[in-house]
């Protein structure tokens, strides 16, 4: 019986060892706690790149679309023989350096949209602090190019920011869309066009909003934004729950009303 017991113990330990070994052989990713990011006057390119990578894969949420290369170009891999983004960014728009182009992409993403993709990218300068934005630019430049972001590019007004390497949502509140009441800026900042189509732009994953005012009144639109589960458009039942519930806490009352009014006018 001792031999049988030994075999049983061996099988149990062997099975546990195998699973533990496999789990330790795969890439190890730890979800860190948000840390204060201080980029002082002597910040080095390496520090910027490291901070930018954390924002890119974490709080920036960039990989959600850019990581796959389906909704948006993959920035870390070659595209049509032009190399990764650091190699191709300086050739995107005539007269614009890599740094200028990347900043424009984050600050005014609809100014230039890569052929074959929809203008769905939110305005990242409204969601991230300047330090985070410039750190991301440095990280992207480093992908096949030369990092020329320096401390002088970063405005002194916002020396610290939060960065979450492991993911998690972007913080909302007062800074949403820079406090703008321009509904187009709100639509852009909220990333509505990542799923909805509006005036010929955006995706067709969720209902087209071009004529949303003809099927919903202002009250219904407001309710839908604040509580997406309150009603589901016919034909989209399978996608119920996809729309984030956080818009009500991200934008202020004036922004919400501006957006509601804007959408309700889309008859």
């Amino acid at each position, binding site marked *: 019986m001792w031999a049988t017991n030994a075999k049983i113990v061996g099988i149990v330990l062997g099975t546990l060892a195998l699973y533990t070994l496999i789990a330790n052989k795969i890439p190890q990713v730890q979800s860190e706690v*948000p840390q204060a990011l201080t980029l002082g006057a002597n910040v080095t390119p390496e520090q910027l790149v490291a901070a930018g990578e954390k924002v890119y894969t974490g709080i920036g949420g960039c990989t959600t679309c850019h990581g796959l290369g389906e909704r948006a170009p993959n920035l870390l891999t070659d595209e049509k023989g032009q190399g990764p983004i650091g190699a191709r960014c300086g050739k995107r728009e005539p007269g614009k350096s890599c740094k200028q182009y990347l900043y424009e992409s984050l600050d005014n993403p609809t100014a230039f949209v890569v052929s074959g993709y929809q203008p769905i990218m939110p305005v990242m300068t409204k969601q991230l602090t300047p330090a985070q934005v410039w750190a991301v630019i440095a990280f992207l430049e480093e992908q096949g190019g030369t990092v020329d972001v320096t401390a002088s590019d970063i405005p002194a007004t916002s020396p610290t920011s939060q960065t979450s390497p492991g993911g998690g949502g972007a913080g909302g509140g007062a800074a949403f869309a820079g406090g703008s009441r321009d509904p187009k800026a709100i639509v852009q900042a909220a990333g509505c066009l990542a799923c909805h189509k509006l005036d010929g732009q955006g995706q067709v*994953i969720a209902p087209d909003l071009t004529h949303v005012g003809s099927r919903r009144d202002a009250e219904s639109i407001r309710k839908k934004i604040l509580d997406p589960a309150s009603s589901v458009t016919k034909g989209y039942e399978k996608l119920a729950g996809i729309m984030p519930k956080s818009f009500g806490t991200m934008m202020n009352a004036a922004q919400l009303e501006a957006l509601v009014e804007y959408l309700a006018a889309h008859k």
Partner: protein
Amino acid sequence: MTDSALLLLQAAADSTRAYGEFPVIGARAYVWITAEVHLMFAAFVLGVPMFAVVTEAIGIFGGDERYDRLSKEFTRLLLVAYSATAIWGAMLVFGLSTLYPRFWAYLTTIFAPSMWLYAALFFIESFTLYLYYYGWDRWKKGKAKLGHWTLGILLNVWGTIVMFIANSWLTYMMSPPRDITPTTDPTTIKLWHAIANATWMPINVHRVIANVVFGGAIVGAYASYRFLAARTDEERAHYDWMGYVGNFIAMSALIVLPFAGYWLGREIYQYDQSMGITMMGGFMSWLWVIQAFLIAVLFLTGNYYLWIGMGRIPGAERFRPYTKYLLIVLVLGAIVWGTPHTMIADSKELAAMGGSHHPFLGALGVMSAKNTAVNLMILTTFLSFLLYRRANTRPVVPWARTGTIIQGAMFAVAAAVVLFYGIRGYFVEAIVRIGFSVYQVLAVLSCIVFVTVIDILMARGAQSLGAIRWGNMPPRSQYALFILAVTFTWLMGLMGFARSGIRQYWHVWQVMQDTSQYAATPALGYASKMISLCVLIFLALVAFVFWLGGLAEKSTFVASGEAEKGARHVGH
């Protein structure tokens, strides 16, 4: 003093009282181990009564006393396991109250009445169990037996309510109602509002099913140990049969579990998309590859056990040649299911792959391929069960040939539907593709239901090709049951880590932040070591518990010679 200064002072004061430390292993490891081992015992003591009461019912209404004895033996395993559950639960509570006092105070402020109810029900549940077990031989006949069976039902009712209550606490941590914010005074939160949170019911359903799977697997392992230790043929036969029943229950419930998991995942996405993305595409994305590997082990080992089991069934030789084809489908399905797709990859890894996805494997890593693979694996496993079930019979109904052809056609149609929608999924938009998985699942479930109905009808009066030779199994079949039990237990620990880990650095998601030194969520490597340790502790204690049970037990098994004289009884 300004408001912000006051807030800072308050925060500092809170932090100083917020956390304790446990020697050597640290506070997080202490809570991790006690919570996990408690949960494993709890799952066992909730899962086993479910089929104890079902097998007792089969014994009562089917007239087969073997099931009654089996049920009693299941219940005997529960007695000491209950104590272990309570001990580990107490260790967890003491740990939480001393190592995470601020968080524990927050939870108790909201949930105190439910905790009192929990304790009361646990008390009632324990005494119901004592009555159920110790009254077994006293209330053996007629109405008294029905009353006894009712006690078993009550045992399950109390246990399920107890689990639902505990689930409300942990699901509140995951998905607190959206109107609750960091500034909400916990004394103002209504109890039912906190209990009925977004993930409460999906977790409840998922755990009920998972407990059945888990209980079946542990009972299977127990039976296999007793089989290997058996001294007589009767004993071996009994435990062979018990292991088969445990495995059958575990595998049957396992087939349903992914649907409950899908519902839970969907609710998580619905509650907070960023939490869902963290779970499926964020830092936890590799976890699903490990999960796929574990489930592949379960399918392969479960089928392997069945195929070996055919060796003890006269007439099963007819079906043996087919097992290699079943094995091929299972292996291919497992490979596709385990293919990585949406992973966080660094620039070097991306460059090595030549893109965001591997050029070949990327196509197999998408849900169209994975859904197709898993549905075909389920169909294959069902086919294994069907062949096993039919092995020692030859149907005599006049329509037997037609029935078999219809059954074959149903399998073919279900597989064709699964393949069709799997391939078509590559050519349509995501919104359409999502709906295809429903058609695939419906095709498989319909096949399982209708083929089973036909099989039952076809088995009427079937000619027997010989009795199953229970006990006539090679030892490797029993080791397979051990692998199943270890894998189920490890999988439970892994998915517990996934559920808890997606909160990341929050005690209560976006309401109460973890500001301790252990706030970061560890990588899978560290988690796997903790899981293995918990599994080892649990299995060692279960082995000890079973050994204790064996010490106290006076075997009523009789030698085979005497058994032939009329003592047909096997078991206790």
